[in-house]
């Protein structure tokens, strides 16, 4: 198993969203998380990405979060939010900034080629983020995440703003990658051949 977590728990105020939750994701496996809105699916992904605090035992190839350290953990476990934020400048500026991060040093794929396969026009990379549509931003954020070669992808509704052709192209590119995917699209789990985890 690549990613193993146990004892995951999340409360919001008095309400327990989930508790004593365990999950495992094997190499190259897709696990799809289903659950009602507000059931804590996004929080679960953020906790696994070490972006939200928790006390659970989460391991990557047997190494704990504490053992790897937060930066190395996030370098290997990549969370992609549902709504890609509007960054300053253009997507190309953003990718260049990411490529300059110490953690990503020298181990990068080609997000431009990846996004082109998903139907994104090349010139979108040079337009300001603020002028891009939700679908364009989503493909760019996802392409950057895939191009950064993480061990595990944590994807929050990764294709929610895409047309069917782009969805199919993205799903094809996810094959063979270890991924935990939150989606409301019941059919997507089947298309991806994913194991389903219900929460909430």
């Amino acid at each position: 198993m690549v990613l193993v977590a146990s004892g995951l728990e999340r409360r919001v105020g008095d309400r327990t969203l989930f508790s004593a939750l365990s999950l495992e994701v094997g190499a190259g496996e897709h696990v799809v998380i289903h659950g009602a809105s507000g059931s804590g699916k996004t929080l679960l992904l953020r906790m696994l990405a070490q972006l939200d605090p928790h006390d659970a035992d989460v391991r990557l190839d047997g190494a704990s979060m504490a053992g790897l350290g937060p930066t190395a953990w996030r370098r290997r476990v990549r969370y992609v939010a549902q709504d890609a934020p509007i960054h300053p400048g253009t997507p190309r500026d953003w990718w260049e900034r990411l490529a300059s991060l110490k953690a990503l040093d020298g181990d990068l794929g080609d997000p431009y080629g990846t996004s082109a396969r998903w139907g994104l026009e090349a010139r979108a990379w040079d337009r300001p983020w603020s002028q891009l549509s939700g679908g364009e931003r989503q493909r760019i954020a996802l392409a950057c995440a895939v191009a950064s070669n993480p061990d595990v992808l944590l994807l929050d509704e990764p294709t929610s703003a895409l047309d069917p052709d782009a969805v199919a192209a993205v799903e094809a590119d996810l094959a063979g990658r270890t991924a935990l995917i939150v989606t409301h699209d019941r059919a997507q789990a089947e298309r991806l051949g994913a194991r389903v985890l219900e929460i909430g």
Partner: protein
Amino acid sequence: MGPIELGPWQIGAAAALVLVNGALSVWLKLGLERKLAVASVRSVVQLALLGFVLEPVFAAGNVWLVLGICAVMVVLAARAAVSRVSRGYAGMTLASLVALLVGAGATAVIGTGGIVGVEPWWEPRYLIPMLGMILGNGLTGISLGLETCLKQLDEERARIDAVLAFGATAWEAARPVAAESLRTGLIPILNSMTVVGLVTIPGMMTGQILGGTPPLQAAAYQMLILFLIAAATALGTLVSVLAAVRAVFDAEGRLRPERIRQT
């Protein structure tokens, strides 16, 4: 040639001019007359108090007394810097105090002892007014820097998290916020330096000219104080912004906006 001495009636006459503002406020229904009155009374009381305190301090020539006054000034400036910021975090006043001590305190001492060559370096006639001018500007820089920094950390979590998610350190993720905050904190002093002498004759130079100092000498002192203010503002704003970033990120390099409170 010393300046013409001002007595109570001159101050009263000048204060009467503020009544014009008050009348305007009433006429245009600005609702500012009360604030104007309070601000005017505060100015008179605070400045009179300063005059009364400084006379014996200048005469006594006691280093501890001078440093005590300076300490009070730094504490009041730190509180004022923090009070103007619409967000806060636990320990922000203390951090601003350190920022002003590092920025303004060190710069003022370097100015008097190191550059002007005053002996002793704590000579109150030099140290207190110079520290006051540096603090007054430095606290504005800190306020603006903190306002920008905490606002962005609070409202732009998605952007920052998106960079953290790629393995960025807290510092790599927060660097654009810190840079923007520092830039904002330095705007007032950069503006002052741009128009000084062309549009404005600054207070210190005006005072020295009225006091009988030759204009060229007064200008030299003004250049000195502007450079000291710029250095102190940059240093103080940098320290306070770095402290804010450190406070709002946790040991695991996560952004924790819940540590920011609205004030």
